């Protein structure tokens, strides 16, 4: 499958990654190889096969509606790259 620069840009945008020109041609080459490799799956006739979506055989793993497990704000913010002691902070987001 042919990978275009536009596709790389779109995927990078979705994945929130950025590539300079050199990296972009490298990732394009890698992605082409990787996609070519996984296209081996196209050999199989899978029309009658149901996809296996969940690995665990357990169903209905439900818990009771009980309040527990919260941590203190101090602990919650302990690993934050930027905080004012109350909130996690990020650069101003223009309202969605």
């Amino acid at each position: 499958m042919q990978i275009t620069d536009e596709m790389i840009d779109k995927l990078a945008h979705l994945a929130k990654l950025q590539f300079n020109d050199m990296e972009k041609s490298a990732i394009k080459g890698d992605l082409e190889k990787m996609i070519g490799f996984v296209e081996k799956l196209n050999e199989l006739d899978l029309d009658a096969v149901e996809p296996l979506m969940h690995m665990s055989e357990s169903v209905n793993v439900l818990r009771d509606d009980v309040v527990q497990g919260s941590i203190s704000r101090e602990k919650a913010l302990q690993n934050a790259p930027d905080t004012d002691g109350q909130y996690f902070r990020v650069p101003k987001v223009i309202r969605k």
Partner: protein
Amino acid sequence: MSLSPAYELVIGLEVHAQLLTNSKLFCGDSIAYGADANTQVSPVTLAHPGTLPVMNRQAVIGAIRMGLACHAEIEKNNYFARKNYFYPDLPKGYQVSQHTTPICKGGYVHIRTAEGERNIQLNRIHLEEDAGKSIHDIDDDNTCIDYNRAGTALIEIVTEPDLHTADEVAAYLTELRKILRYLDVCDGNMEEGSMRCDVNISARLVGSTKLGTKVEIKNLNSIRNARKAVESEGARLIAMLEKGETIVQQTRGFDVASNTTFSIRDKEDADDYRYFADPDLPPFALEDAFINDIKASLPPLQAERIERYKNEFSLSDYDASVLTEEKEISDFYESLVATPALNKKYKAAANWMLGPVKSWLNENGQGMDSFPLTPDKLSAIISLVESGQLSFSTASTLLWQAMLKNPNAEPLQTAQQLNLLQQSGKSELEPLIDEVLVKFADKVKEYRKGKKGVLSLFVGEVMKRSKGKADPRVTNELLLEKLKEN
């Protein structure tokens, strides 16, 4: 606002309702409103590596309750999907939602408008988790994030593009909120954001079957604003079509100050959310017995209560409808009529609820849960009136004020202390009646000549002299007797 009759609006609504659970959808953090920022968070909510979600049974039950009440089909085989996008208030970088298998499919909500009654068709009700809050106005340079709300269980109730007017939108939202409250599924508090509404709206020529380009208006936080947003955006879209302009697919917001909508962003490149089954959450399968148990536990909704009030309590359609408009008021009324002191005076109880009680709620801008009197106290007040010990006007003014100030007092004692009890004894009333008949001797003559209307003047004068304590019925009877005698 009148719109050009050549065009019609086609409207679909997406309502997010926070479920009245104790804890979040996938972890045990409390969801209580109003807590300090970032104090109701766990490592699961904060998306710390290695944490895994476990689903809250109560949330599933809440969604099914709403589905059953809306006549929807309940999906037996459910799983959660991830909706992938980056936003600071979305801790995992994806929202867990039901993309392919909504837990409730189809169904409808019955509404009444001036145009008549109809069913608004639902597309689906699905479970999902809420995002945190991005706060843009407390810090000049930064957006501040509070994750308390992140992970709260929501249902999203999505209609078909089946509404056509602002009236229908308001009626639908009112009805939906009523059902949510009756079911105890959501408190329906739009100000606190526990019920939020997005409107999808397009316009087309009447008779056309093709949908026009739609515009989405996000985050309407009251029924009033939803109505106004539809009115204003509907007019804008139709004016554009009339001028031959092209409508762009957009996400818009509603500005309360100017009553107009404004563009937030164009939807030119549709978002690619890359939905896929969440591998961290096992699927859940609902059995008939589980669904039937929930069905059996559903409380009667408004329509059923109206019928019961008409049949059991002989109330008018109007009284029954107004009493059941809010579940809390209806519940209070039922407690009230169940008190022995009330002695089945259903209509009197309804009058008190719709009169003094509702006035108090409106004047104080409060809900029924803040009303100071218990059903027992109100029942005691009503029985004082019904037994003729107190006039309605005295009971609903002087005694009412006194009881509201001191809700724990006994109504009878309070009435005695304030010297409000009526004088229905002949011995107390006769001297007053004689006094009045002497003073208004000319009117007595008129009465005898056939001008029976002056009787009410005599009653009024007696009442005045008794300082309102005379029982009007007894006074009336005594007067008639006296006037016959002479």
